[in-house]
């Protein structure tokens, strides 16, 4: 399926040089917007809008459960500054067109990416689930439960994770973890989303 890309600045999902950028055509039934406000066009099969920490509704407006069109949100999962993963989270609204979702899936899967679909909730799937765990691990470190080495080793050996929670969140950037969790906390308010102290420190020490 042919797709066009309208882009300003570097995309978190598709950094410069990513093959997905090179695969774009001048125009197509699918238009991918990265860092550019999208233009509504009901004549397109799908309009794909790259998301950061915000909801798709920030771009489309909301209608109390009636929202939805051919506009689909997407984000390729990245652990902070790590390279993008192979996963694309598609974000749908209540009345999002099934044809638009199918086209979005087809475009990304053709590029060799894994695709999942979620509703328009803060943190989508992965950040919603994994950020509170990183916060807990950072808090445990402060409270002396165990050393960083032992916590990471426990997760690798006991749970088969490729890396431990602290080594992973530090590698991705504690300051970026702060930004993500602050956005989640603003929406959900649960204490599990409140940025861990070490993430707050990293954000405050960040060079402007």
């Amino acid at each position, binding site marked *: 399926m042919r797709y066009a890309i309208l882009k300003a600045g570097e995309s978190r999902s598709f950094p410069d040089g990513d093959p997905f950028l090179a695969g774009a055509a001048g125009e197509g039934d699918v238009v991918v917007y990265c860092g550019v406000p999208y233009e509504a066009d009901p004549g397109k099969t799908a309009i794909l809008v790259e998301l950061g920490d915000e909801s798709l509704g920030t771009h489309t407006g909301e209608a109390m459960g009636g929202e939805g069109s051919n506009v689909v949100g997407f984000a390729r999962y990245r652990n902070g500054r790590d390279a993008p*993963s192979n*996963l694309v989270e598609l974000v749908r609204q209540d009345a999002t067109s099934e044809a638009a979702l199918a086209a979005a899936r087809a475009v990304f899967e053709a590029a060799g990416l894994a695709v999942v679909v979620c509703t328009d909730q803060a943190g989508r799937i992965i950040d919603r689930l994994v950020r509170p*765990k990183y916060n807990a691990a950072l808090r445990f470190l402060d409270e002396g439960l165990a050393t960083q080495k032992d916590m990471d080793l426990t997760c690798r050996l006991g749970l088969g994770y490729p890396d431990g929670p602290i080594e992973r969140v530090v590698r991705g950037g504690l300051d970026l973890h702060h930004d993500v969790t602050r956005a989640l906390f603003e929406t959900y308010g649960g204490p599990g989303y409140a940025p861990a102290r070490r993430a707050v420190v990293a954000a405050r020490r960040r060079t402007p």
Partner: protein
Amino acid sequence: MSSIRTVAVCGAGGTMGAGIAIVAARAGFRTISYDVAEAPLARAAKQTAGFFGKSVERGKMTAEMRDRVLGSMSHTTDLAALGEADLVIEAVFEDLSVKRGLMERLDAACREDAIFASNTSTLSITEIASGSKRPERVVGMHFCLPAQLMKLIEMSPGLLTSDETLRAAWAWTEACGQVPVRTQDKPGFILNALLVPFNNDAIRAVEAGVASPADIDAAIKAGLGYKMGPLELIDLIGLDTQVRLCEAFYPVTLDPRAAAPPLLRRMTAAGLLGRKSGRGFFTYDGNAMFGG
């Protein structure tokens, strides 16, 4: 260097206890398996012989080594037979009064210098040790399932555990080729303290309509590189077990993430317990998983 020669395992008729006995015997320790009934011990002994038989087939040990290891193992339903044990590891039912009661009886059955280790995953080592008149000799030693394959052991001293006890128990785990990590005596230690709330969050995401169980698991596996998705894992653990874990943690920590999600309770009430009942977040036909 471990000064321990003889190891006893209480609750050795169960899966975890039988696995721990294998770890001890495989490392060359004389191993006494204890349980309250003969039938589960006999079943475990048969499974243990099968396990070591496979180890020979796979070239991990010789037939002579297998025979020597099996010859070093015995089982009993008489607690008095644990009198010669240097280290007693308990893997009995996860209930504080049961474990405290066992500690009290071990006081009477075992030598003054014996070390008592608890394989609890959720209870406080200090509270379990309060059943013994020698709490300085009690230490947490949490194996992962299946114990005979997993290397990790969470080692937790209680408030009164002596350094000598921790050192001796630690050295024994290393002598067994295991990998000990040190944690404080807090609910769930490291592994379950991170895992139980994370799994609850995944259940809450299903309940909140964020995505299907299949898409949540697919996202976690593809995005984070985990071998299993959280919902597949809960199905394996058992939803009723997840409820029990929540009930062990939440009253102690008051962490809202540790509280049992309403969907978990509803599914448990409906008998949707995961793999063991054939349906949980996914549906199972035999061992095959076909989405949910």
